């Protein structure tokens, strides 16, 4: 019973495919991938719609006001209204802009964001595209986002857009390193780049009750935090939303976009967010594994989306509480703290592995991380708290 | 239609020649870099193709060489673009016709 409930979607897909049993197999391949794609889009567009309204409601609660509550029950139909508004808005394209680039940018950014979703295992046997180097695929596609952002900035020939794009790319590149390097320890320990294997490596429990998730090891915890922060930056969320900081540069690279293109950017940002959080859950929070053995009867995908939504809630929470950081602060943080700590995580993971993955390894890796952390924080602690910002211009 | 090694070689040859074209006939320094990168990529394509079609592909030598070539190409691009920028700083141009200080 539970098993069937768990595998219900897989079964469904098989059912659909079996209907075209006597078709050439390349057709079957295409069909199955199409099914996957449609499933993905359906789920995540819905999630996006929900998220957009929930975020506003949560922010409202944080700021001690009601969020949107007019359209539909609890304002749940708000996203539909927004969608209609966006669709019927006029699509303004600046006269002096580079039309093609300006048009391609949102398409590319949305496409890459959705592609990144493809490799995440959403449940037992529910990985849309099984690629041997799935993680690498994720980052390869993710790195394309920078190009898209740049296109947006360049295409809409506008200084705010360009500045925003520059800022965005700068911080994306800076945080891509920690993001990727914090994944390496997991890859090292799991011995594979395939998300499924990594999730499988986190199955089971220590002492029967602590799940074998990587976040419960010192290096895993550190890597998870680093990964989470970098992910925050990658998806340009507060407190790292300088690229589209309304108060500074109108809306960054999205300044010149209106109507549905703007909506596309918006969606791309959210979907990127889902992808990052999903990967975080997969890498560190044991993917679709249940936290307690008793609760394993609950279907795996439920667990996965529970974790996903928990992380998303943290995103919103941070946005509601933290002020925006300064560009130079972000950069210094990336290069002077995040990167060394990320490398430390690798070392710590190696230590953990070679001291026998047990309690001893746990302590040793904890020691390594603690030492490096204290050293770094003492070194980086400049007494001048409010340093005047030093400006540097591109020629 | 079955894929033979020949097809890949032809494609890579075409790619190589397009790269050569870009490197030879464009004036802007960046184009030269783009062309060079293309030629390198064509070479990589050849390596991979030869590996795939080799009688015993247990030893992925071609793949290895391709990986190293990519790394080296990345380094080359970084340094090359840095050069372009610094040249631009000095001469206020990236037009390689005007950069003939090496003239004998």
């Amino acid at each position, binding site marked *: 019973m539970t098993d069937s409930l768990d595998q219900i979607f897989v079964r469904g897909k098989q059912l659909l495919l079996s209907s075209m049993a006597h078709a050439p197999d390349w057709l079957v391949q295409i069909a199955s991938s199409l099914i996957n794609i449609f499933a993905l889009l359906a789920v995540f567009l819905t999630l996006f719609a929900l998220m957009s309204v929930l975020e506003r409601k949560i922010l409202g609660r944080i700021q001690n006001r009601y969020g949107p509550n007019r359209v539909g029950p609890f304002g749940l139909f708000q996203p539909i209204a927004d969608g209609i508004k966006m669709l019927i808005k006029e699509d303004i394209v600046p006269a002096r802009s580079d039309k093609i680039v300006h048009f391609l940018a949102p398409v590319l950014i949305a496409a890459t964001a959705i592609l990144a979703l493809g490799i995440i295992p959403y449940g037992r046997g529910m990985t849309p595209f099984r690629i041997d180097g799935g993680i690498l695929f994720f980052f390869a596609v993710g790195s394309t986002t920078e190009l898209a952002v740049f296109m947006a900035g360049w295409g809409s020939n506008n200084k705010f857009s360009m500045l925003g794009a520059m800022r965005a790319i700068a911080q994306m590149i800076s945080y891509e390193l920690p993001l990727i390097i914090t994944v390496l320890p997991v890859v090292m320990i799991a011995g594979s780049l395939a998300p499924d294997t990594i999730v499988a490596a986190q199955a089971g429990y220590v002492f029967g009750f602590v799940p074998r998730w990587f976040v419960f090891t010192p290096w895993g915890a550190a890597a998870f935090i680093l990964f989470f922060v970098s992910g925050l930056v990658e998806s340009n969320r507060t407190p790292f939303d300088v690229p589209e900081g309304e108060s500074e540069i109108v809306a960054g690279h999205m300044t010149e976009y209106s109507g549905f293109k703007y909506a596309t950017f918006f969606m791309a940002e959210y979907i990127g967010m889902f992808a990052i959080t999903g990967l975080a859950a997969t890498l560190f929070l044991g993917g679709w594994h249940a936290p307690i053995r008793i609760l394993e009867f609950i279907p795996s995908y439920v667990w996965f989306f529970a974790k996903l939504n928990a992380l998303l809630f943290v995103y919103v929470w941070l946005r509601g509480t933290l002020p925006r950081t300064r560009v130079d602060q972000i950069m210094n943080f990336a290069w002077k703290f995040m990167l060394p700590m990320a490398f430390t995580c690798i070392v710590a993971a190696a230590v953990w592995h070679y001291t026998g993955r047990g309690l001893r390894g746990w302590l040793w890796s904890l020691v390594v991380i603690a030492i490096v952390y204290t050293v770094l924080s003492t070194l980086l602690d400049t007494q001048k708290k409010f340093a005047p910002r030093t400006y540097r211009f591109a020629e | 239609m079955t894929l033979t090694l020949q097809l890949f070689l032809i494609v890579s040859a075409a790619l190589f020649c397009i790269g050569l074209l870009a*490197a030879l006939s464009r004036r802007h320094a960046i184009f*030269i870099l783009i062309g060079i990168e293309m030629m390198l990529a064509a070479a990589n394509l050849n390596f991979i193709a030869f590996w795939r079609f080799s009688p015993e592909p247990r030893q992925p030598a071609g793949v290895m060489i391709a990986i190293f070539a990519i790394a080296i190409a990345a380094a080359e691009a970084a340094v090359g673009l840095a050069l372009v920028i610094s040249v631009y700083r000095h001469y206020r141009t990236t037009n*390689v016709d005007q950069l003939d200080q090496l*003239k004998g």
Partner: protein
Amino acid sequence: MSWLITNLWLIPAIPLAISLVILSLAKSRRKSAAALAIVGQVIALAFAIFAFLPTLQTPGFRAVQNFTWFTFGEQALRIGWVLDPLAAAMMMMIALVGLCIFIFSVGYMADDKNFTRFFAYLSFFCGAMLGVVIANSLLLLFIFWELVGLASYLLIGFWIERPSAAAAAKKAFITTRIGDMGFFLGILWLYHSSGTLLFYDEGKGCLESAGLAMLGASATFVALLIFCGAAGKSGQFPLHVWLPDAMEGPTPVSALIHAATMVAAGVFLVARVYPLFSLGAIDGVTPSLTVVVWIGVTTALMAALIAIAQADIKRILAYSTVSQLGLMMVSLGVGGVAAGIMHLLAHGFFKALLFLGAGSVIHGCHHEQDIRKMGGLRRLMPVTFLTYAVGMMALSGVPLFFSGGSTKEEILHAAARWPASRLPYYLLLMGVILTALYMTRQIIYVFFGNRRAGSLHAHESPRVMTMPLIVLALCAIFFSAVLTPAWSWLHGYLTGERVHSEISRLIQPMLFVSLALVGAGVGLGVWMYRKAGMQDRDRAPETDPLEYAQPALFRFLENRMWLDEFYDRTVIAFATICARVSDWMDRNVWDGLVRGFGDVGELFGIFTSNVDERGINAGVDETTAGTRGLGRLMSAAHSGQIQTYLGVVAIGMLVLLLFYAWLA
């Protein structure tokens, strides 16, 4: 235990390392420097005791640890260290005496600006000496030997600003170097003939039967050459001149040199390689040993005589050292190895005691060293006086109660039993008398009589200086317990043969002999110098009674038999002349020749340059002109544009391709 053997090297290593540490300290870290040095010495002492214990278990205990230093060609150069009674006893003595001296010098050097450097050198010195003691390879021993030489050089010349000190340091270094020359030759010869420099190596060592057998007749020469080194270090007759001058160094250094480290090295060396000396002995007599004996006798007597006429408190002690060393050499030469070493150990204690006492006196008298300016210190510095008296007794060999006495008896025994000749024996007896005499003289001058210019404002030394004195005095007294023939345990321990001891041997003819001799010496001294220093304090240092009686003889002795002058006239003069001559040759002959060659070359140059101008240049010009034209042509193609070059490369590739296609 085995751990101890494998890590025996720590004993010299620790002081050496610590000396380096101290050198790296700042000048102002005086306390830490002293503390470090002393701690290092304590550790060394502890190790020495640990090393000493196992040697007690079995008679003739010996443990060696050899390893290959490096290999050249097919043969490896092996070094190592050895632990046997000789080494253990020496280590104990060196570490203990060294420790006392270190502590003493904390007080003595208290107001010296190079305090830290001093302690660095001191522990360097001790470390090097300990290395000499434990070395199991003649090469390793030589290395440490030279380190000892270096340390002595540094320490004797410690007060560089004094030219005399610098001179003394140089003298010591060069003189010992003369000896070391022979030593090194000996080493080479030994390695050549026996193929190994290890002393003990499971029967293959150069001191063991196999090695000795290989050595054969050349042993004599090897032994003599090595003895040169020993003579140089421990100031035997021809090369003793540096030792008295070494007094220029600070007193603790003198103590160290004379008691524990430097001079002991020579005697120790002879004892260590004794098998080389005694190889092929006919009832204990070999040519080399005979040489040793005669040199020793000469040294002993001569030094004792000179000591009588010296005025400098430290010089007297220095000459006494020389004579004592002579004594030891004699005893080694006549076959009383154990006796010699025992005397060396005992001497280590009481000579250190005497020197430190002298140091305390000098300190008290504000660096006055002339005994004729002192006097009446008996009451002013009681502790010093008592301890010094003990030292004097021990040195002059008062039997029964003081170490030195019984060892002297042993030596006299041995000398008396020497088959070759009995002359050395009588000479030694004389030496004993003289020793007692000059020590009495010194005591009377320094401590009795009434105060004189130097000792007006004398004061007792601080506790840190007196404590070591007391310790050493106690050693000097109680050490005699193990030296008496009654309980000749140490003898057996050193020689490794079982000894039976009965109390009856305590009283024996030799005892009375030496008693008589010492009594005679002291009595003579008291009689001669009874009036010394009785004059009132204002008068200038009065003439020495002996000088009063025998002016010529006194002059002769006072000027150290004019040996230094003799060397000046002969050796050094010769060296100077050589230098002058070669200098002259340089200036005139060689220089002239070189100039001549130069002129010839110049002429040739002029000639060739003419040829160049006329003939060759013209041709060259033509060629260059042609080249330039060609270059102009070429450089036209050199447009400096990358793309052109790139295109040319591409065309070249195309050509290659076509060539290949044409071939295929």
